[in-house]
């Protein structure tokens, strides 16, 4: 098991290098640079700045320099916010983004699993129809519509919940739901489908033949196999949570990493954008690894290690 994880971690290194190289190249071949927008900067100062940040060297040399400082844990200085390091931005934003993602993930798992189980247990009856209709709607209402609507209802009209910032648990409710609902919908559909698939299996009949209660049949014999599709889905879902958080953080004015990334890309703040790509991509790759390990733990037929 440990060896499997270590081997997979080693496998992530080249993937990470490719991601960084592509992002680095994309930014550098684009016209413009971090010090171009401000017309006030005179050419001499600009040349000095370029030299200080080693932007005058050939690209491969710069890329190697970047990798070198990453190895030392230094994400470099921000070009657009003088005196502040990328590490600072990420230390401030990343925990908030992760919190938001976790709230959304927990919400989507709770709601999605419950709805999916209800749908499978009462297949083709009203709880099923209700849950699946809700799921289709959940899939079709994008978070950037849901967020403003929720604000309109809960903050503007009824003044029940705050519409912005990230200070207490009340602040987490609306953004969490906004970000998580789509995944709740997908998880509900996957859970229902997975359970119905397993319920038809012979071993579920065996469990009933042993005189187990329906509750035991469901929770001990059916659920584990039934949620496997959900576990598989969690990998892509993590990626989606990150993407979605770009929007949700903007809607609810949450001080996460999302806004930095878009602005950094627009402003050619190379170090900051690359730093965000590094952290987010790294987190995603590791999350996918965790999902694979969990899958292996749930399904004894899958050999892990």
């Amino acid at each position, binding site marked *: 098991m440990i060896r499997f994880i270590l081997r997979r971690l080693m496998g992530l290194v080249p993937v990470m290098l490719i991601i960084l190289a592509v992002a680095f190249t994309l930014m550098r071949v684009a016209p413009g640079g971090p010090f171009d927008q401000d017309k006030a900067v005179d050419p001499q100062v600009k040349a000095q700045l370029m030299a200080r940040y080693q932007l005058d060297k050939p690209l491969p040399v710069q890329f190697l320099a970047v990798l070198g400082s990453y190895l030392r844990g230094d994400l470099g200085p921000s070009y657009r916010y003088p005196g502040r390091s990328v590490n600072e931005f990420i230390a401030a934003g990343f925990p908030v983004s992760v919190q938001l993602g976790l709230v959304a993930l927990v919400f989507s798992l709770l709601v999605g699993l419950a709805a999916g189980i209800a749908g499978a247990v009462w297949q083709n009856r009203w709880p099923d129809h209700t849950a699946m209709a809700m799921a289709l709607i959940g899939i*079709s209402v994008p978070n950037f519509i849901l967020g403003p609507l929720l604000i309109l209802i809960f903050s503007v009209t009824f003044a029940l919940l705050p519409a912005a910032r990230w200070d207490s648990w009340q602040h987490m409710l609306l953004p969490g739901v906004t970000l998580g609902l789509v995944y709740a919908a997908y998880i509900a559909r996957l859970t229902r489908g997975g359970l119905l698939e397993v319920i038809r299996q012979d071993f579920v009949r065996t469990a009933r033949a042993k005189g187990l209660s329906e509750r035991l049949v469901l929770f001990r014999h059916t659920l584990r196999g039934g949620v496997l599709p959900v576990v598989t889905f969690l990998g892509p879902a993590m990626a989606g949570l*990150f993407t979605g958080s770009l929007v949700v953080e903007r809607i609810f004015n949450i001080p996460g990493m999302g806004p930095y990334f878009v602005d950094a890309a627009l402003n050619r703040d190379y170090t900051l954008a690359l730093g965000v790509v590094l952290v987010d991509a790294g987190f995603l790759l590791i999350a996918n690894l965790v999902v694979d390990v969990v899958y292996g733990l749930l399904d004894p037929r899958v050999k892990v290690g």
Partner: protein
Amino acid sequence: MNAPAEQLAPVLEPAPGEPEAAGQSLWQDAWRRLRKNRAAVAAGLTLLAIILFCVVGPWLSPWRFDVPDLEYGPQGPSLRHWFGTDALGRDLMVRCMMGGRLSLLIGLAATVVSLSIGVTVGAVSGYFGGRVDALLMRLVDVLYTMPFIFFAILLLAIFGRSLVVVFVALGAVTWLTMARIVRGQVLSLRNAEFVQAARTMGVSHLGIIFRHLIPNTLGPTIVYATLTVPAVMLQEAFLSFLGLGIAAPDASWGLLVSDGAANMTFLPHELIFPALLLSITLLCLNFLGDGLRDALDPRMRFD
């Protein structure tokens, strides 16, 4: 502009001159099952109505999408402006129609990009197998792990907000699953008798792939494409919302929703109308995709 629902009927006919393409009865069966699925039919008709509304509507409306009605100003719905006007006093209904044109166009165009790449890669990979297959699928695996939206954002931020970049960025993001599906299909077909026959008759590799194999993967391809359209529209809207998609005064539904969200406290209708149109369209496309999947093969799953 071609609409998915309008295309449906012709596409479901077997391609002429393809005797080994899935038999007539399969498509007829699927078509019959689809028509029996009331939700899918309702979704298709609604979609058709929305498409007509967006395509024909602007010609019938007295208002232009980029010219404000200065004497009316920003206000809610009325007989003069059925959807009301936006913050600058422009007729919201015409803006929604124009936005719909663009959103649907992007959805279709990016799906075509995604289809072309995905089907080609998948078919080549599945047909040649061996080292080609291993290489291409390894590539797909690596690309799967990439946070693509970052690259899309980087592309748009760096090369500017042009429609072409949006197509390419979105198409490039969505072809991976398509490639896997087609590869699986081709893999199971490549040793079928009709392929062997074509091979012994000296048909070239490309000829076999494009004339014989790809037509036989149409079923899953159509279904997945139907589900790709809403996914792409969603992505476009999402990019527009972040201020990276279409630029004003042009409009897409995503941009309209974004504007509406900004003004929702005093002009809630500006959020609600484009949000409704976008959501209903996505809902219909999803229903239609589900219906097509059930009609073509109840066992097929893309989850």
